[in-house]
């Protein structure tokens, strides 16, 4: 069993393309396998991997801790900003609703058509009409109106 077979048995391909790399078939490949430490030492790459992972354990743990802390920091940051904003919004909403309720009591009366027509018109009501002494005859009324025109 050569190194490649051992790797395959161990579930570790040395390269995804190693077995199919025939693109330079025109040139003889140099037999460099002897330079592979795993060539004469079965399990060398497993030990290499284990050594790297052992040395990496502390840094990986530090990164996991940082990742956890950063998630907590984001959440607490949100809470720090969202809670005051939420409280302020609630207070503002309460004040707005309260003022609406207060204003509902002294609401202005609805306008009527006569008021709209009479608004901004100079007061020239005939005293006879105001007093209820206007003549019933249209002709007499017109005479009365004509007599009051300046």
């Amino acid at each position, binding site marked *: 069993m050569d190194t490649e077979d051992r790797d395959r048995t161990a579930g570790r391909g040395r390269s995804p*393309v190693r*077995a199919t790399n025939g*693109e330079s078939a025109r040139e003889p490949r140099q037999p460099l396998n002897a*330079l592979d430490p795993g060539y*004469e030492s*079965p399990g060398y790459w497993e030990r*290499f991997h284990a050594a790297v*992972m052992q040395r990496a354990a502390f840094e990986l743990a530090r*990164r*996991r801790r940082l990742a956890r802390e950063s998630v907590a920091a984001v959440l607490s940051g949100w809470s720090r900003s969202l809670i005051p904003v939420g409280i302020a919004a609630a207070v503002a909403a309460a004040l707005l609703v309260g003022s609406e309720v207060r204003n509902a009591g002294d609401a202005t009366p609805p306008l009527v058509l006569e008021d709209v027509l009479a608004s901004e018109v100079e007061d020239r009501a005939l005293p006879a009409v105001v007093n209820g002494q206007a003549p019933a005859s249209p002709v007499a009324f017109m005479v009365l109106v004509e007599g009051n025109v300046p």
Partner: protein
Amino acid sequence: MKDRSDAELVIQACAGDRESFGELVVRYQRPAYSVALSVIGRHQDAEDAAQESFMVALERLEECRNPARFAGWLLAIVRNRSRNLIRRESLRRGDEIPASASSSGPSPERAADISALRGRLTEALNTLSDVQREVVLLHDLEGWKHAEIAERLGMPSGTVRSHLHFARKALRIQLSEWKDYGKGV
């Protein structure tokens, strides 16, 4: 698990997921070792450099701006780290991976043959340029395709083919002078 992309594994590893980082190590421990060996040329130091590069990569995962290109990024770390180790002449020789007690290793004769062949191969590889060594090891030892090497080393595929061609030619010349080359291995 096997279908997860490098990008997914990197993102999970960033959050400290042991399984994801372990899968990245499985995928790239051999290429990392090959690149380190291509730079340093000595097994023990290459092993140290490759392992330390994984540690550096883990500590700097946030700097991997394109997680889909993790392999190229990692191999650049391996290359730089290996060069720095050589430059500083402070290669660490500890932390040798202990062989398991139950390991069914080769016989002393075969081990000697392998050791001799390894020495010869290393000598031959040392006659190549850095990039030629890297390309020929990734292609002929790790089985990467031209396109994979090109993408991960950031060079045109034609350049990879060229490096591979000249590297093989040089290796053939070097190794043909060794009459017992390849026998018994």
